[in-house]
């Protein structure tokens, strides 16, 4: 028994099986985590080596190059970049997307192990560092306070950090910019010298005084007592009374030579939230944990925490990674629901019957829910790719059910009972239904095989659409006939009863449409060459529009995520105090001019905490980092891109600003969905030469209208003081450079003498010169150190201090030195436009010096890679679709006719992009590729039925017209469900929905255009190609007949002769 027959005969089993699928799907959906993108490993690995005392060039020669030469052989390596700076070499290996990173890490360790003997002995062992998405904070909070500011660190540490750390999935909670208490012993060098004391001695005395020592046990009679000597300070004031020396019979206390301050440490970083001093709380997740769940838990816990904190402490959310995820997912869920609704309306409009509409639309939830089972089974998440896939599939899943139900209705009209009709009508179409599904699968399955970053994004899309479409076909040949046999009525004519009255005018309209189309078709078939030629003229015209650059090219569509980050750099060597003043100036400008920004988090200077340094490489004492949160896009008129451009203009007005980067959307470097950047790489061995070239290019490019924030990756040289020791003189006094250098460090930076304990917390006791004695160049020269015989020696006696410029960092890519010009784009500028402008206006007439060559990188590189991947894919898909159709029709001509309908589809894509002013991005291109599968379905329906009519004996033109008339409704119906299913995606109202907008636009444009043209073009092509084939056949037959006749005549003549 055939599958569909079994389904009709066993309705209970069929229904229960599908209910089972629904239950499993519902269960999967309930347990699915939410995320932005499918899980993807960032394919970067770094090897970091430190080598104390070496400058950038030494590092490059002795470490970076040695490592690079060997690491180059690692499998799946895409690009090898390195940065050699003072004392550190950092090599970054960019692997192919989707490569096994654990394997790569093992390979790299092998390489490091093999060559570590070739590295200099003094260099530390190279460390392998693996990037992970869990390093990015999932949430950044800010805490501001007025009266409680001094104690804020302890408050937050006790009441917040510890509590948040206990939440499941939270990796770490760290505080930045917190005021840290320290006990300062600021000594006066003049007094110190008078008493023959040194900073080190004072440090030693403090350490000796501040200790608790258990002193053994004492037995008195039968009892035993512990004896201890508690010398630790009970209060910071105890320090004042420490006796440090006896001088001429007088006791010298610490307070005689130093000022003791129990205060907070000098700020190296100034954190402000909306202008108020505050602390930034960074929450990182454990690897593999779900951001949305963590943020939800943290937010809930924060409410409890707030109650335990003093009233003046205010907690705000600076960054919440889950917000955009939740918004995107919500808006996509809405999109899917709207698509569902539109499809129902279309089906109801054409069929005019509630029961039929119900049967068809039931296949939507059943097939879509299997996607959740797939996602749950593969451990994936409900993300924007998986949800968009559903909204792409929704218009296609009803197609098969429509075809089956249409044939069943036809059988019922002929007098079958619904049950008979269900079985025998399905029997007639089930093979054709599977064949059209194969065409769609031929388009989507190859998507799972794309390599590179595009592959990571589209793999899930390919699988989901393939699975959903296959399940919908299965439902169409089992569930649809089964439900039809139970639910459809045997009546043949619509009764227009009750609410059904509204279908009367619709039916009339559709009938008229059929008639009108038949007339139009009759005309076109008579003027078929005109139709064909004008289609191709249109195609070439649209191609011309595209080639002429009317449609800009872009990598990924950008979306307004309501966040702007900004890095502002002043002159190098400016200190935090000065930078803070400029920061306040910029703050006030932002406050006045941009009411859209409701949260302004400013971070000036760099944290003394090493972990935060790794996270923010842009931080420096002369740099200000901003994070600005804007109100939701629909609540403001100016886009974040426009605001960014205006901010740039404001920064240009501030003279002390040396350079800046404004990044709408945050996350510079543009991973998925981020903004596009161009980096123009200058390769060349000679550092000065490449510097000159890069500076020239930077200058020229920053004058272009499309570019913003043009910067060099190699920073300017930075002035430093260098203490050069005279080793002979040092030896004379019994000193060496290390002791003197350490002594200088202890006086300037301070010596941590001991730890002061209070309430279980420890605070540093720092001894150093009081501030007035370490403010000038001469202060260093006048530092006194003591020789081996105790004689005082000034630093200037043994060393000279020179002002120097630190050598720049050396960057390399694929083992060649390079410096890159980093370029951001202006508001609304597409990547392709900027690239073209740079090429035309800067590079075209630039004579590149010998030994230097240029290369475009950044998003341009990604875009070119992905576009070429997708173009290959397009060719592959077209071939596959052709093969599937050729086997279906057992003809080479028919698939060719159908494939020609792709031509007007591409015209439609170009027209739609052009009309809506949408750049051609990776996503739009993907839409164009999907069109191949969608538009040929229409062609198959038309050609198949025309063939059928011809086989039944109609003449070509008659067959063409009759089949057009008969297939108009199914073609319009399947096209309209797909088009209207895409409308919510193309309108894209929700946050983050801009990403899929180009795809929606491309598909709607292409499909609308191709549907209307297919309805006219396919009949014409059919009549031309099949007609000419027929003529040839006729000629051949006539020839054969003549030949036969000639032979017969010859035979007759021969017989007559006998």
């Amino acid at each position, binding site marked *: 028994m055939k599958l569909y027959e079994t389904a009709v005969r066993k309705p209970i089993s069929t229904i229960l099986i599908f209910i089972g699928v629904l239950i499993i799907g519902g269960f999967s959906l309930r347990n699915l985590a939410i995320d932005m993108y499918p899980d993807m490993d960032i394919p970067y690995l770094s090897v970091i080596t430190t080598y104390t005392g070496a400058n950038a060039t030494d590092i490059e020669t002795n470490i970076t190059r040695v490592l690079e030469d060997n690491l180059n052989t690692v499998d799946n390596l895409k690009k090898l970049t390195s940065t050699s700076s003072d004392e550190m070499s950092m090599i970054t290996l960019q692997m192919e997307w989707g490569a096994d990173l654990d394997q790569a890490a093992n390979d790299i360790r092998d390489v490091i192990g093999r060559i570590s003997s070739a590295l200099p002995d003094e260099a530390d062992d190279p460390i392998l560092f693996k990037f992970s998405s869990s390093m990015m904070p999932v949430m950044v909070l800010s805490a501001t306070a007025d009266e409680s500011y001094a104690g804020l660190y302890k408050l937050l540490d006790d009441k917040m950090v510890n509590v948040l750390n206990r939440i499941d999935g939270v990796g770490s909670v760290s505080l930045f910019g917190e005021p840290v208490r320290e006990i300062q012993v600021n000594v006066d060098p003049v007094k110190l010298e008078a008493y023959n004391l040194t900073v080190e001695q004072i440090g030693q005395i403090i350490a000796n005084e501040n200790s608790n020592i258990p002193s053994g046990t004492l037995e008195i009679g039968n009892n035993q007592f512990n004896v201890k000597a508690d010398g630790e300070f009970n209060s910071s004031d105890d320090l004042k009374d420490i006796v440090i020396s006896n001088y001429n019979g007088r006791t010298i206390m610490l307070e005689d030579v130093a000022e003791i301050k129990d205060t907070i440490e000098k700020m190296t970083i100034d954190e402000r939230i909306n202008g108020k001093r505050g602390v930034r709380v960074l929450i990182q997740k454990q690897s593999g944990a779900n951001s949305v769940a963590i943020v939800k838990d943290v937010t809930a816990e924060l409410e409890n925490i707030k109650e335990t904190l003093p009233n003046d402490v205010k907690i705000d959310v600076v960054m919440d990674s889950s917000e955009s995820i939740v918004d995107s997912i919500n808006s996509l869920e809405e999109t899917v629901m709207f698509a569902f609704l539109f499809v129902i309306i279309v089906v109801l409009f054409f069929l005019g019957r509630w029961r039929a509409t119900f049967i068809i639309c039931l296949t939507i939830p059943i097939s879509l829910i299997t996607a959740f089972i797939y996602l749950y089974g593969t451990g994936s998440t409900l993300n924007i790719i998986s949800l968009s896939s559903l909204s792409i599939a929704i218009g296609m899943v009803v197609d098969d059910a429509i075809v089956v139900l249409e044939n069943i209705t036809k*059988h019922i009209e002929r*007098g079958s009972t619904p*049950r*008979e009709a269900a079985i*025998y009508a399905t029997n007639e179409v089930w093979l054709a239904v599977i064949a059209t599904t194969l065409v769609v699968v031929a388009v989507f399955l190859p998507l799972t095989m794309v390599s590179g970053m595009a592959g990571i994004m589209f793999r899930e899309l390919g699988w989901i659409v393939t699975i959903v479409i296959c399940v919908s076909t299965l439902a169409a040949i089992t569930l649809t006939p089964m439900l039809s046999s139970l639910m459809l009525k045997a009546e043949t004519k619509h009764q227009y009863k009750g609410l059904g009255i509204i279908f009367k005018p619709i039916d009339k309209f559709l009938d008229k449409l059929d008639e009108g189309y038949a007339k139009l078709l009759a005309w076109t078939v008579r003027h078929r060459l005109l139709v064909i030629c004008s289609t191709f003229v249109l195609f070439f015209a649209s191609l011309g529009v595209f080639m002429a650059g009317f449609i800009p090219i872009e990598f990924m569509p950008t979306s307004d995520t309501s966040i702007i980050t900004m890095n502002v750099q002043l002159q190098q060597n400016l200190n935090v105090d000065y930078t803070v003043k400029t920061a306040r100036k910029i703050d006030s400008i932002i406050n006045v001019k941009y009411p859209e920004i409701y949260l302004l988090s400013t971070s000036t200077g760099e944290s003394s905490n090493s972990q935060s340094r790794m996270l923010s490489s842009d931080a420096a004492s002369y740099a200000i980092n901003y994070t600005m949160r804007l109100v939701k896009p629909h609540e403001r008129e100016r886009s974040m891109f426009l605001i960014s451009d205006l901010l740039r203009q404001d920064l240009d007005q501030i003279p002390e600003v040396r350079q800046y980067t404004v990044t709408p959307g945050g996350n510079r470097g543009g991973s998925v969905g981020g903004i596009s950047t161009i980096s123009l790489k200058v390769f060349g061995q000679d550092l000065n030469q490449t510097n000159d070239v890069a500076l020239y290019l930077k200058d020229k490019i920053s004058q272009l209208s499309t570019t913003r924030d043009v910067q060099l990756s190699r920073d300017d040289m930075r002035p430093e003081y260098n203490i050069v020791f005279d080793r002979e003189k040092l030896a004379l006094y019994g000193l060496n450079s290390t002791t003197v250098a350490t002594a200088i460090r202890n006086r300037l930076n301070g010596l941590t003498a001991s730890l002061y304990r209070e309430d279980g917390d420890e605070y540093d006791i720092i001894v150093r010169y009081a501030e007035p004695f370490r403010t000038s160049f001469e202060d260093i020269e006048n530092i006194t150190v003591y020789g081996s015989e105790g004689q005082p020696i000034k630093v200037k006696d043994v060393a000279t201090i020179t002002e120097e410029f630190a050598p720049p960092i050396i960057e390399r890519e694929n083992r060649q030195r390079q410096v890159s010009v980093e370029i951001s784009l202006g508001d609304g500028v597409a990547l392709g436009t900027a690239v073209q402008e740079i090429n035309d206006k800067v590079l075209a007439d630039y004579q590149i010096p010998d030994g230097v060559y240029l290369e475009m990188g950044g998003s341009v590189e990604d875009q070119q890679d992905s576009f070429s991947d997708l173009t290959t894919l397009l060719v592959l898909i077209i071939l596959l679709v052709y093969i599937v159709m050729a086997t279906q029709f057992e003809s080479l001509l028919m698939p060719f006719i159908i494939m020609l309908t792709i031509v007007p589809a591409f015209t439609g894509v170009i027209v739609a992009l052009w009309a809506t002013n949408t750049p051609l991005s990776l996503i739009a291109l993907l839409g164009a590729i999907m069109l191949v599968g969608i538009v040929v379905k229409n062609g198959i329906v038309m050609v198949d039925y025309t063939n059928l009519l011809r086989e039944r004996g109609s003449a070509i033109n008659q067959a063409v017209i009759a089949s057009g008339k008969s297939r108009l409704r199914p073609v319009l119906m399947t096209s309209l469900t797909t088009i209207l299913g895409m409308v919510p995606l193309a309108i894209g109202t929700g946050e983050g929905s801009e990403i899929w907008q180009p795809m929606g636009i491309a598909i709607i444009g292409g499909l609308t255009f191709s549907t209307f043209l297919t309805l006219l073009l396919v009949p014409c092509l059919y009549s031309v190609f099949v007609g000419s084939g027929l003529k040839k056949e006729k000629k051949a037959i006539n020839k054969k007949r003549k030949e036969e006749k000639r032979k017969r005549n010859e035979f007759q003549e021969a017989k007559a002769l006998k």
Partner: protein
Amino acid sequence: MKAIFISYNKALSERVMETLDRLHARGFTRWEDIQGRGSFDGEPHYGNHAWPSVNVAVLTIVADNKVKPILDELRYIDHQAPQHGLRAFVWDITEKM
């Protein structure tokens, strides 16, 4: 004894068989999925791309008095679904074993 040869669209299978059962025509011989074409009008039943429907033929030998009720029933079925195609032919049985 009469032989009734019934040739019909497969879609009518259930109704025809149910009629024979109801009228106690127990014995029959059936050919499934066969091809056929009417003499005057109606669609051919070839089971191919152009003409996807197929026929079924049943040969049943019944007592003379059962012929009329069977034919009446078949006529009613044909009247209900004239486009499907259902024909019956009757001839005499002269001998049997």
